[in-house]
C-alpha cells in the first residue's frame, strides 16, 4: 500500500518534470525564433531598451517594434538613468532634461527630433461647462495638470504665465506624474479639465473635447533624444536614433500629430 502510493507520487513527479521540460524547450524555441526574425528584418533594432516620454507611447512602437520600451515622465526616466537604469536611448519631451544629462555626461550629445503643441482637454460631457481657457478660472473647476518637474507640467505653467492666468492654479486638484495620467483623469470624467499634448488628446477620440491654445502663448515645445553613455550597445542605439530621424520615421511622427522640425534646426 505504502509502496504503491510512493510509486504513484514518483510517477506524478516525473510527469510534472516532463511537462516543465517541454514548456521550457518550447519557450527557448520561441525566443530563438524571435531573435532570428530580428536579424533578418532590417527595419527592426533589437536588443536595446528605449526610455521615452509618455507622449511617445503610441508612436515609437509604430516606428520600430524591435526595442524594449519604457515610457514615463521624461523627468522620472532621467532620474532612473541617473540612478543607473539600463537604458540605451533616452527620448525626452523637452531639450532641457537631455541637456542636463549631457552636462553630467550621462548621455551623449542630444539631437532634436520632433515638436508638439500644448492643448487643454475637457471630458466630452463637459461637466464644468468650459468653453474657453478663461473658463478655467471659474470657482470649483477641477483642473488636473502634471507635476512641475514633468515637461508637460512646466509647459503648462509657462502657458498660464504667458496668458496671465496663474490664478487658475488655485483650481488644481492634482499634479499628476506624467501626461498620460492627466489625460486619463480627464477621459474618465473625474477631472473637469487638463493640459496635455495635442498628440495625447488624439489617442482618446470621442472621450475628450480639445481646446487649442493661441499660438502666441504656445511654449517652444521640442523633443530631443540621445544615446545613453552607459549603453552596452551604442551602435544599435545610434541606429534607432537614425531610424526616428529618417524620412519614414518622421512620416510616422507627423501621422501621429507631431510637428515637423523647422528646416534650419533639424540639421543641428
Amino acid at each position: 500500500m505504502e509502496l504503491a502510493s510512493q510509486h504513484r507520487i514518483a510517477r506524478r513527479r516525473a510527469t510534472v518534470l516532463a511537462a516543465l521540460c517541454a514548456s521550457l524547450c518550447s519557450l527557448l524555441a520561441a525566443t530563438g525564433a524571435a531573435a532570428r526574425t530580428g536579424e533578418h528584418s532590417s527595419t527592426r533594432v533589437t536588443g536595446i531598451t528605449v526610455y521615452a516620454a509618455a507622449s511617445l507611447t503610441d508612436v515609437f512602437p509604430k516606428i520600430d517594434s524591435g526595442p524594449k520600451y519604457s515610457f514615463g515622465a521624461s523627468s522620472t526616466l532621467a532620474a532612473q538613468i541617473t540612478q543607473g537604469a539600463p537604458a540605451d536611448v533616452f527620448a525626452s519631451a523637452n531639450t532641457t532634461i537631455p541637456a542636463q544629462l549631457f552636462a553630467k555626461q550621462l548621455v551623449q550629445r542630444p539631437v532634436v527630433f520632433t515638436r508638439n503643441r500644448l492643448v487643454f482637454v475637457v471630458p466630452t460631457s463637459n461637466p464644468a461647462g468650459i468653453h474657453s481657457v478663461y473658463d478655467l478660472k471659474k470657482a470649483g473647476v477641477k483642473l488636473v495638470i502634471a507635476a512641475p518637474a514633468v515637461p508637460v507640467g512646466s509647459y503648462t505653467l509657462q502657458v498660464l504665465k504667458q496668458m496671465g492666468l496663474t490664478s487658475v492654479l488655485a483650481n488644481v486638484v492634482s499634479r499628476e506624474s506624467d501626461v498620460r495620467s492627466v489625460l486619463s483623469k480627464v477621459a474618465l470624467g473625474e477631472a473637469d479639465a487638463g493640459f496635455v499634448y495635442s498628440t495625447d488628446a488624439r489617442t482618446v477620440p470621442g472621450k475628450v473635447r480639445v481646446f487649442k491654445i493661441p499660438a502666441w502663448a504656445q511654449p517652444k515645445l521640442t523633443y530631443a533624444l540621445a544615446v545613453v553613455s552607459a549603453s552596452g550597445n551604442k551602435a544599435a542605439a545610434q541606429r534607432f536614433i537614425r531610424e526616428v530621424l529618417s524620412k519614414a520615421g518622421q512620416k510616422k511622427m507627423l501621422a501621429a500629430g507631431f510637428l515637423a522640425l523647422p528646416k534650419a534646426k533639424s540639421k543641428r
Partner: protein
Amino acid sequence: MRKALLALLYFLAAVVALAFLALPIVAIFVHVPPGRLIDQLSNPVVTDALIVSFKTTLIAQAFILLFGTPTAYLLASRRFPGRSLCVTLVELPLVLPPAVAGIGLLAAFGRFGLLGSSLSAAGITIPFTQTAVTIAVAFVASPLYIRQAIAAFETIDPNLVAASRTLGAGPARTFFRVILPLSRGGLAAGEALAFARGLGEFGATIMFAGSLQKVTQTLPLAIYAEFEVNFDVTLAISALLVLISAAVLISLKLTSLWQPSEQISSSRFARLSWS
C-alpha cells in the same frame, strides 16, 4: 555529519535571507549622511505630507475600529450560510494589487461611478479630496485588522463568555468586560498592522485621489513625486517611514501584547477562510 551539514545549510540560508531583507533598509540610512537626512525633514513637502498621511490614516483607523470590530466579532462568533464568503471578501483587498483597488474605488465612488454618480448629483464629489485618500486607506488597511480581530475573538474560551452570562452580565457588559480585554492583544496587533499598511498606501491613492501637496499628497506619494526632483528628500521620507514602521512593531513587542505563535498561525487562517 549529515546533521551538521544540514545545520550549516539552515544557517547559510538564514544569513542570505536576513542580509537580503536588511540591505535595502540599511542603504536608505547610509546613502547620505544622517545630518543631511534630518535637514530634509523640515522641507515643507515632507511636513505637509506627514500631516496629510497622519490625518487620513488616523481617521481611517477610527472607522476601521468602529465598523471592523463588530464585523470581526460577528464573523468569529456566529456560524451562518455565506460566512466563509464574507471572510473571503474581507480578506480579498489584502491580496488585490493596489492598482485594482484604485480602479475599483474609481468605479464605485468616481463621478460616474456606481455610488459616486448619485453622490455627485447631491453635490458631493469624492475623487481628489482627502476623503478619497481616507477611503483608499480604509479599503486596503481594514482587512489586516478584521482578519486579526477574527482570530483574536476565536481564541477566547467560550466557557468564559458563558460564565459571564450565567453570572448575570448582559451581552454588552460581557463584550466590554470579558471579550474585549481577553482579545485586546490580537486587536492591538491587527490595529498596528492596519495602521502601518495605511500609512504606506500608494497605488489606490494615486489613482483615486491624485496627488496634491497639502491636500492628497501622502508620504508615499511625496516619495514618488520627489524622486525626480530631490533624491535626498525621498531618502528622508523613506527613513522616516522605516522608523515609524519599526516603532509600531517594537512598541507592540515591548508591551508584550504581540503573541506571534498564536495570532499569526497560518493554519488558523486557512481554517478561518474556508470553514
